[in-house]
């Protein structure tokens, strides 16, 4: 088999994996949008914040140490302990639930009947706030995250493909792990949404706030629940991306990448987020592989957006989204 095709297959597989990671972030968006019609621009920053909190917890960092030192002239940085990953994750999850509750109470309760653009801009404000807050709390330098996920090249695949193609595919263990986690997460979320009482209530709220209220659904509870779920998804995404490339500011930019994923998959579909993520992941990598060298490379910066844009022009609601019918 010609070399290019073999390389192409490797790129394709890596594209699928990248797509899964994108989908993980996109899932958080879909959850919140489904339940409250809000496009949460802060989802990426939530992933960053949750990862930072996890690292901070595990390393026994003193929160706001920088600020405390500046104000009081002290020089403290660490408590001195180290927490195991699981405890760290549980504590971080608790903080994300608290965050969900605060966000609901302070911001979105007051913005209930506003237009979508206002809600979107509020989440941009939230994103900036949380970024500053996270940096203030844990420090803005890049951190290493290790919760024990296997990393590095998967030797089994390397050997197997070497035997078949004379070329060992480099597929990272982390990506495989992320794919499995994402698959479980999607199944769990879909099951939750379709088959549980809370899931049904969530879908009711997504459709019509007033109607949901009139059948006894507590809007506040649903919203806190949804934002907590989104927080959990953000944490998972944060762990995956953070392990892969370190916990740093650029993690929040992943949110921007999620946008084209949602354009393709539709804002309200959980499976759509996955399919959209895969298409973008594969598309990006393949385009860079095939066309990139011809036009200067680094096409991954914009390809996803242009693809989504072209797609949108022909199908404004995405692959799985609901068709927007406008009536007068």
């Amino acid at each position, binding site marked *: 088999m010609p070399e290019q095709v073999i390389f192409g297959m490797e790129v394709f597989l890596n594209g699928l994996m990248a797509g899964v990671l994108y989908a993980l972030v996109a899932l958080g968006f879909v959850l919140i949008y489904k339940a409250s019609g809000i496009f949460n621009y802060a989802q990426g920053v939530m992933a960053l914040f949750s990862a930072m909190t996890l690292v901070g917890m595990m390393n026994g960092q003193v929160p706001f140490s*920088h600020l405390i030192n*500046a104000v009081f002239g002290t020089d403290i940085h660490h408590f001195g302990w180290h927490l195991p990953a699981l405890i760290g994750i549980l504590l971080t999850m608790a903080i994300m639930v608290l965050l969900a509750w605060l966000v609901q109470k302070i911001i979105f309760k007051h913005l209930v009947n506003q237009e979508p653009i*206002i809600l979107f801009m509020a989440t941009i404000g939230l994103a900036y706030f949380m970024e500053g807050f996270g940096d203030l709390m844990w420090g803005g330098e890049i951190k290493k995250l290790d919760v024990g996920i296997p990393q590095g090249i998967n030797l089994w695949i390397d050997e197997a493909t070497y035997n078949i193609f004379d070329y060992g595919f480099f597929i990272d263990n982390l990506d495989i792990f992320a794919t499995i986690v994402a698959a479980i997460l999607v199944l769990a979320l879909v099951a939750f949404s379709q088959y549980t009482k809370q899931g049904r209530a969530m879908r009711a709220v997504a459709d019509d706030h007033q109607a949901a209220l009139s059948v006894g659904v507590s809007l506040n509870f649903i919203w806190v629940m949804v934002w907590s779920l989104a927080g959990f998804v953000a944490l998972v995404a944060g762990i995956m991306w953070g392990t892969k490339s370190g916990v740093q500011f650029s993690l929040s930019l992943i949110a921007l990448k999620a946008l084209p994923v949602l354009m393709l998959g539709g804002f309200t579909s959980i499976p759509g987020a996955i399919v959209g993520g895969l298409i973008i992941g594969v598309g990006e990598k393949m385009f860079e592989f095939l066309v990139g060298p011809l036009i*200067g490379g680094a096409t991954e910066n*914009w390809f996803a957006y242009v693809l989504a*844009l072209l797609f949108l022009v022909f199908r*404004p609601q995405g692959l799985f989204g609901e068709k927007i019918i406008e009536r007068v």
Partner: protein
Amino acid sequence: MLYREAGDFKTTYKEDNQTFPIKFDRYRYYFVLIVAFLIIPFWINDYWVNAIFLPFLIYSIAAIGLNILVGYCGQVSLGTGGFMAVGAYAVYKLMTAFPDVSIMIHVVLAGAITACVGVLFGLPSLRIKGFYLAVATLAAQFFLVWIFNRVPWFYNYSASGQINAPERTFFGVPVTGANADSWATYLFCLIILTVCGIVARNLTRGSIGRKWMAIRDMDIAAEIIGVNPLSAKLSAFAVSSFFIGISGALFFGVYLGAVEVGEAFGINKSFLVLFMIIIGGLGSIFGSFAGAAFLVLLPVLLKNLFVAGLGWQPDLATHLEFMIVGGLIILFLVVEPHGIAQLWRLAKEKLRLWPFPY
């Protein structure tokens, strides 16, 4: 008592249509113009110009431009940074290719070029709305930054990829390059801003402004009563990009002098200008000024307070800045979605009745 309309009757539609129907407002406007044009240039120094006035003037132009698109016409755009880049590179290419033509013409031409690019990237707005349109503009943002990085023709094949503004004069006085005096750069930008402000005001109070607002408020109804949505939306993109392009040209040519496209015109720039118009007030020319002033002054104030005043490290001040800006956005959206402009309007209304409560 001071601020009254009683007795100030309008007898013609023309009088009723004025920008500042109340005498007090009109005199205040002339006063500001006099101070801005005749007093400040003599009193100003380098620090004030570079830290405050120039960014304020230049961002005001961008904010007016973005407000026309987002605030008046309701089309969300996250591509402001990219369009400013178009203006900057356009003016660069024009300056270097035609060194004898006046810088003013180049700036206006740069605006026109950006307007054309804006129309191109605005075409999707005919099929796509709301967030989806925001994504389309993101495509513009990332693609434009990439293209100015990758295609060497744009930066005249220089090794560093950076573009530098050559010296140009306006009526004999240098306004770009290292020899430009701060009062000259200030006046140059001020003149352009004043013209832009007047043009924006004229456009938004006329039938075009009404078309934009109709599209914003209910585009289907607008189409049924006779507004061509294609021409209305594209004209908004065109006019908006014209202003933003001029702003980018000035930002590069007069303010920074040298620019690396990823840093100067990245997505953060787009958000910055968007925040300006949210905090200042969507759909308000005054709001564009207010928002620009606010977001230019805030980091300066914070740095002076925390770094110079309390001796903290600069990155702490930056973190706080993010928190304050983010928090203020949320605060304004919750409490006063129409921004500082609305607060100003309410204050004026109270003042009209003062000392009576209602």
